[in-house]
């Protein structure tokens, strides 16, 4: 039997990798994918705690998180397309008309 702390530590690693990607990557799409990775880390945590306590609330929550991720992806990718149309780039350093 794999103890729950293994799963939780794995989720924490995924969360940290996603966090690192968000703060360090410059490509809009890759940043967005790193956010998806963080959502998945949360899902793994929910499922591990659900399994540990033997109730299924975590499964229902994971279901909602997947739906939320789909909704975010739809609007987010629409915004990515809009920004590419006006700018012609997805590089965050170029996207800075609004700075200062």
């Amino acid at each position: 039997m794999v103890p729950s702390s293994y799963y939780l530590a794995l989720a924490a690693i995924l969360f940290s990798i996603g966090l690192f990607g968000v703060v360090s990557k410059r490509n809009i799409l890759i940043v967005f994918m790193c956010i998806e990775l963080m959502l998945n880390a949360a899902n793994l945590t929910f499922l591990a705690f659900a399994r540990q306590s033997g109730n299924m609330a975590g499964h229902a929550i994971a279901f909602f998180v997947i739906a939320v991720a789909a909704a975010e992806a739809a609007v987010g990718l629409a915004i990515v397309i809009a920004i590419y149309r006006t700018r012609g780039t997805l590089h965050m350093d170029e996207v800075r008309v609004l700075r200062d």
Partner: protein
Amino acid sequence: MNFPTQDFAALAPVGILSGGALILLLSEVFLASTRRGYQASLTVLFSILAAVAAAGGGSPGVIFNGQATVDAFSTFVTVIVCAGLALSALVGAGWLRARQAERGEFYALALFGASGMALLGSATDLLFAFISIEVMSISTYALAAYIRRGKKPAEAAFKYFILGSFSSALLLYGTALVYGAAGSTLFAEIGRAQGPLLVVGLGLVAVGLSFKVAAVPFHVWTPDVYEGAPTPVTAFMAAGVKTAAFAVLTRLALVAFQATPASAANSFAWVLAALALVSMLFGNWLALTQRSVKRMLAYSSIAHAGYLLVGVVAAAAAGAREAALSSILFYLASYTATVVGAFAVVAVLERRGRSLDEEPADAWDLERFAGLGRKRPGLAFAMAVFMVSLAGVPPTAGFIGKLLVFQAAISAHAYGLAVVGMLTSALGAYYYLRVVVYMYMRPAEDREIGLISPAIQVALALAVVAVIVLGVGPETVSKLARAAAAIGM
């Protein structure tokens, strides 16, 4: 388990708002014509109906196994959100019509956003709060990108989206840890849990919410997004998103303050106090140097998040809790009326380029306000009232709001926060009153201001009346706020 009809009935205001959104979407299909004037009126009608339904619906209390609570607090929040929605829709009508960009989708998204905010005001479960935040946020992301002329709006929407979904991810992972510590995401259960997992989880949730309320150091998106988004959308974000996010933050803070180990509750209060302090200092300081009035209002909204956080911190002391909660509610009401009004004036004076894609650098420059007092005395008077209210000078709503918050802080023995709050308010008066000086003491720039659309005139009149009435006779509303504060304790 029976079907919870009564629980659904308690959420009637949300039903009215989202049903209204559907009607507006369909109107674009079946009634589309060049005349879309009815759409703004319909939006205002639905927000009034929702506010009436909320006020008349009573307080059934806990619904859906504790995931939501419809009480006086959530009713108050819903009414503020509806007022903010109605005023922003009126501003939007005038602003969009001048740009031939009025569509039913705009109002539909605003109504959807408001239903998310109303849900958030009643959320007493972290998962449900997360989903409500997403309903609210996704509507506002789309609204920020609604009109894409030039480069700024798409970029504002993008920045808002990336930082918004990042903060949602932090909030969700925090929720997962809290679920592990408490075995549930219900606020009621979280209050009984303890342990390091709970502390880390609640910390991540607090960081996620700080992004939403734009508290320093999680404010970096605010100036860019507020400046780049269409002005009516900025007004809606400043009023609605802030109100709803503070509603859930307040409820959650109350849970954390009552947590069993006093040390955890104390550290939570200290973290919030630190956020309040830096938000007040940096918000006001950064606003000082802004020449763009729209950007100045963005920084000022960070400062106001700081003042509101002072109210939340004051709620940590059991003796001051009722005063603190009612002060937060009153502040949110007064801030909504004031900030939507101020953005309405900004929307009127905004400079547009000759071509669709041109973005004049001085679109919202202070110079645009020069000599306004002589050319448009009515508009200048309205702006003066809003600026005076934001600065917290009597006899306006902003003054009473600040007074109540600082009183609550003093009775909670948070003297330092109260003093810093008063000092930074004095600092803030400088940049707010500078706008007034420009309007009344600078010679007019030689240029014509177009006619102000009737919708914006109505919004301005309502906002001015609200700000002055709340400032001169605050008793009725503050009594309601006190009644609303008597919950959740």
